[in-house]
């Protein structure tokens, strides 16, 4: 080894936010101004839940910096034709020329109007990685805010690759954009394919390891034995996409095979809508004067409004009651003596049909296994137990149910999210210590504090920012191409809502317009950053064809890839280790990211940017300056578009709005505001302070890990089990859409049921394929699934050699997983080239034989199949994305679809 003693060696703190389960803190060793090694930030060991460590992905950042295939100068396209078979003919240009090309287009738009003839924004943008690109794009959000309307509906994976139903229904029911177990305290976890050892980041991995050591039991229910399954106490190989049946059967066992007092009855009576009375038309029976939902008071022997003091509500039973029902569009029914069941009794009646024996056949899991797991869940719940958290006594319910991606997506996602939340409620374990927790809000506001987002609804629930469906409020004309505000009331209208809309509809319309919907115009300018929808969405050939028609595409580019292949201008931004940004850390955020501290961390240039790559903040400032938006841009920064307002009650670090400031000046002001926010104005550590120390935190109350205290303090109820609001909203949405002549969303509207009804999802998927494409059931006897890879998920790091090398140590990264016995039956040996064919198209790759996968399932990890990205294009590993069609028939009411497709598998000769 070369002698390192005479080198100038530094260790520089920064952060990694390549995946949604971060950010985490690291240091980079720099020798003679060259980054050589990533290490954990041991200085953060005391304040970080995983002792300051970072996961495997962070170690790829050194190679990412020095990758010789990087784009290091701005480029412009010289071939006006676009497509996979058209060489873009990119040639280097100066930054000035590149930015002028972009500014000229933007200025043209400003002159002609920001909206086009369909009413859609002329500027579109797509960012990847579950919001993580914002941790790398400097002040671009301020530029976007200063611009005005931007269409973000061209999805790069949202809706088909995220935890979609969990996000939307989670926010509705317990301010839970993401949901997890309270891993530090829980004792029993039922996991339906939640691959936390691959996707929950270092906080999740560390905490689950601790939990295993202290004896937690996690039952992993999934068709293939994932990394997480391997680390679980038990693997239950369920038939793909039958999870709702399993969950219904768990409810059946708990409600019909156990004594009622095994449940947390006080919680159900006081903290849920279980006692609310349901009228003959399936809406709550309400007090005629106050319109408040009624419940049966056992003390007075009459129906009383839900918030009546000292009432003793009946949890179960049928009662004869006078009151009104209010349905869709204020349709009202008056009842003199209506027989009304409680919502809980409705639930009990509804779940009676879903026995373990019924589910066993559907799920291909023995009834006794389902029954045992349901009973174990109940036994471990410790109903009645309490724990003291920071001086406050709270329920202690160390059981949780968690859901994976394909379980949460598409049809069945509603059922699963509902059943998961309900199971927690039945034992009083929703958002309490040990139980099932939400960890962040993105649709409700403020995004940085779940508790402050708690506001009361007139019916006693958490208020929700629905997109209106009443005649006056409904937005009949979509504002962006996928029409989230028009079609998906649950998606709300926060800055995150576009990403939670039905993003594949934007791509689908490019192939075939929807009746009675605005013409699907092309965006005049499309910005793309840290995403590659030509690889990461479905029916990737069609998506690529669509984007090839976009007239002007601006890609912030790291290397050439399959999406920026269609670009007109490539702008090389300084990457992770080369640029400057301050972000929030700690508190509670995605997945299992909840800390005992909160604060800020700096990402800083540990080495000089390579080539002509420029800091994103410089690029954003230049775009603002060249489009005449500098003042608005600076005002947006001052307002807090970078997440921290520069002016507070006791401090003011606002920027002069008339000047174009250097990136260092901007981030120094932001650092000072952050320090002031953390110290109530007492400190003003600026950029230099953060450069040296890397991060600054203050304690974060553990009481804020749980929503329950806020529910109690506001005297609210979790909206379980009955979904009256959803039912009404679904009816109203139907009315509005039909008034416009729109019938193509009818199937989605059927999902608005007050109690989810089992649909035969495997059959539904096969029928949809048969209806829209070619082939009969028997032509496609396998299910094709995917699984996350910790080494790659969200990372935009597929071109990093080191990741490829170490990922290949984990089974499945080199080919297609197939059950060993089934493969033998088909004459397939390990490593043989096989063809996997869906009704859409076929792909090929080497077979990887494994016992830990169902015989009716094959699986392709991650998202590969690159053809332009340097290094990755030589992987020879296929992706399911090319094989999965985008179909309205498979789209659920939230606008999502599941990552699953029926396929045929056959051995072939030759190379891929």
């Amino acid at each position, binding site marked *: 080894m*070369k002698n390192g003693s005479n080198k100038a060696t530094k260790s520089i703190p920064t952060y990694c936010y390549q995946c949604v389960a971060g950010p985490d803190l690291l240091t980079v060793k720099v020798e003679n101004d060259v980054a050589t090694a990533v290490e954990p930030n041991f200085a953060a060991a005391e304040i970080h839940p995983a002792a300051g*460590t970072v996961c*495997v992905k962070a170690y790829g950042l*050194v190679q990412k910096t020095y990758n010789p295939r990087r784009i290091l100068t701005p480029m412009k396209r010289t071939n006006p034709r676009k497509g996979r078979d058209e060489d873009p003919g990119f040639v280097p240009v100066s930054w000035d020329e590149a930015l002028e090309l972009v500014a000229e287009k933007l200025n043209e738009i400003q002159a002609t109007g920001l909206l086009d003839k369909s009413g859609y924004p002329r500027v579109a943008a797509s960012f990847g990685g579950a919001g993580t690109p914002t941790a790398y794009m400097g002040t671009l959000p301020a530029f976007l805010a200063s611009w005005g309307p931007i269409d973000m509906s061209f999805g790069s994976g949202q809706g088909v690759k995220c935890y979609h139903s969990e996000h939307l229904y989670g926010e509705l029911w317990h301010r839970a954009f993401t949901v997890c177990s309270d891993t530090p305290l829980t004792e029993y976890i039922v996991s339906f394919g939640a691959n936390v050892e691959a996707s929950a980041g270092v906080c999740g991995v560390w905490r689950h390891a601790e939990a*295993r050591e202290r004896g937690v039991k996690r039952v992993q229910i999934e068709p293939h*034995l994932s990394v997480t399954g*391997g680390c679980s106490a038990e693997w239950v190989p369920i038939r793909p996409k039958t999870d709702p049946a399993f969950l219904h059967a768990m409810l059946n066992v708990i409600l019909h095979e156990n004594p009622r007092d095994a449940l947390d009855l006080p919680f159900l009576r006081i903290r849920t809508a279980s006692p609310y009375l349901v009228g003959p038309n399936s809406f709550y029976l309400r007090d005629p004067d106050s319109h408040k939902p009624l419940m049966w008071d056992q003390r007075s022997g009459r129906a009383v409004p839900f918030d009546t003091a000292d009432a003793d509500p009946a949890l179960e039973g049928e009662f004869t009651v006078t009151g009104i029902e209010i349905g869709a569009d204020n349709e009202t029914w008056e009842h003199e003596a209506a027989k009304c069941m409680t919502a809980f009794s409705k639930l009990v009646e509804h779940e009676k049909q879903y026995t373990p024996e019924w589910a066993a056949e559907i799920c291909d899991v023995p009834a006794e296994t389902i029954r045992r797991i349901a009973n174990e869940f109940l036994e471990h719940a410790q109903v009645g137990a309490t724990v003291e958290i920071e001086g406050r006594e709270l329920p202690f319910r160390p059981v949780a149910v968690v859901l994976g991606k394909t379980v949460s997506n598409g049809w069945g996602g509603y059922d699963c999210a509902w059943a998961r939340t309900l199971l927690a409620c039945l034992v009083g374990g929703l958002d309490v210590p040990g139980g099932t927790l939400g960890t962040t809000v993105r649709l409700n506001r403020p995004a940085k504090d779940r508790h402050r987002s708690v506001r009361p609804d007139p019916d006693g629930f958490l208020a929700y920012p629905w997109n209106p469906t009443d005649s006056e409020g409904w937005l009949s004309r979509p504002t962006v191409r996928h029409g989230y505000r028009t079609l998906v009331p649950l998606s709300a209208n926060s800055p995150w809502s576009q990403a939670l809309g039905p993003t594949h509809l934007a791509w689908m319309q490019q192939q075939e317009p929807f009746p009675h919907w605005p013409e699907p115009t092309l965006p005049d300018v499309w910005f793309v950053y840290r995403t590659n929808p030509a690889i990461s969405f479905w029916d990737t050939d069609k998506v690529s064809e669509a984007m090839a028609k976009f007239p002007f595409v601006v890609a912030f580019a790291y290397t050439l890839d399959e999406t920026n292949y269609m670009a007109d201008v490539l702008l090389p931004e300084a990457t992770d280790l080369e640029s400057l940004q301050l972000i929030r850390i700690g508190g509670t955020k995605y997945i299992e990211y909840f800390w005992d501290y909160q604060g800020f961390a700096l990402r800083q240039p540990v080495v000089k940017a390579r080539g002509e790559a420029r800091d994103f903040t410089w690029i954003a400032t230049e775009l603002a300056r060249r489009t005449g938006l500098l003042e608005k841009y600076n005002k947006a920064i001052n307002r807090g578009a970078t997440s921290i307002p520069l002016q507070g009650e006791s401090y003011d670090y606002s920027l002069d709005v008339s000047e174009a400031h250097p990136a260092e000046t901007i981030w120094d002001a932001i650092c000072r505001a952050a320090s002031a926010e953390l110290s109530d104005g007492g400190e003003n550590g600026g950029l230099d302070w953060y450069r040296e120390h890397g991060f600054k935190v203050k304690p974060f109350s553990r009481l804020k890990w749980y929503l329950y205290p806020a529910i109690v303090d506001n005297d609210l109820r979790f909206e379980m089990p009955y979904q009256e609001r959803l039912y009404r909203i679904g009816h109203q949405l139907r009315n509005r859409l039909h008034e416009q002549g729109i019938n193509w969303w009818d199937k989605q509207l059927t999902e608005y049921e007050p109690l989810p009804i089992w649909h035969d999802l495997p059959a539904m998927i096969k029928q949809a394929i048969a209806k829209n494409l070619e082939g009969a059931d028997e032509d496609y006897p396998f299910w094709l699934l995917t699984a996350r890879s910790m080494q790659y998920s969200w990372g935009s790091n597929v071109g990093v050699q*080191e990741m490829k090398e170490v990922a290949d*140590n984990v089974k499945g990264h080199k080919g297609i997983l197939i059950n*060993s016995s089934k493969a033998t039956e088909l004459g397939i040996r390990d490593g043989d080239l096989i063809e996997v064919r869906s009704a859409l198209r076929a792909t090929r790759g080497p077979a990887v034989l494994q016992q830990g996968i169902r015989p009716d399932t094959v699986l392709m990890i991650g998202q590969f199949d690159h053809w332009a990205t340097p290094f990755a294009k030589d992987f020879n590993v296929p992706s399911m994305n090319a094989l999965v069609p985008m179909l309205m028939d498979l789209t659920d009411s939230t606008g999502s679809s599941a990552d699953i497709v029926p396929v045929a598998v056959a051995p072939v000769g030759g190379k891929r």
Partner: protein
Amino acid sequence: MTRYVMVVDLRRCVGCQTCTVACRHTNGTPPGVQWRSVLDVESGEYPDVRRTFVPVGCQHCAKPPCMYVCPTTATRQRDDGIVTINYDYCIGCGYCIVACPYQARYKVTKQRYAYGSEPMENEALREDPGRIGVATKCTYCFDRIDAGRSQGLIPGVDPEATPSCVSSCIAAALHFGDIEDAESNVSGLLRENEHFRMHEELGAEPGSYYLWDKRQ
């Protein structure tokens, strides 16, 4: 006396390969050379299948077969049990590679780079011709241990004095310390948990102990 050993908690490892790549960063190993890695091992038949992640590397055996076959005394054992290779003495005969029951040794005969035939800046800076054509393997990061001890730090406790695979582990599955010290972290772990050593029957007295729960 001191004998440094590795304790691997199989109940905690998730096979993420962070240790694999952390070792690469600390030791500047070339592509394809993994002094530490994690095996993804499947056992049983569907549907009764287990998947176990097993970190492996040089076991720093008490009776190292690699050392006994080395014709040049390049492979030696320190007083603290760490098995070392003196690259200046190694003639690259490969006997040790064959003799090692744990397949822990590597030999590359020309420089390898991540992307083609030219080194990146970071690779060029760390390129070491002395490692070409000789046997290499995990060193237990003895340079970190020695530097740390000289500053009064404790290997296995203070991350700066601990092998980088251990201090980078995101599941705290890897532990390092002095097995001769009854009060050390590793002694405590071995006292309190069931454990085994790999291929113990071969008599090399390997220094990697694997914690597990027989019931599972």
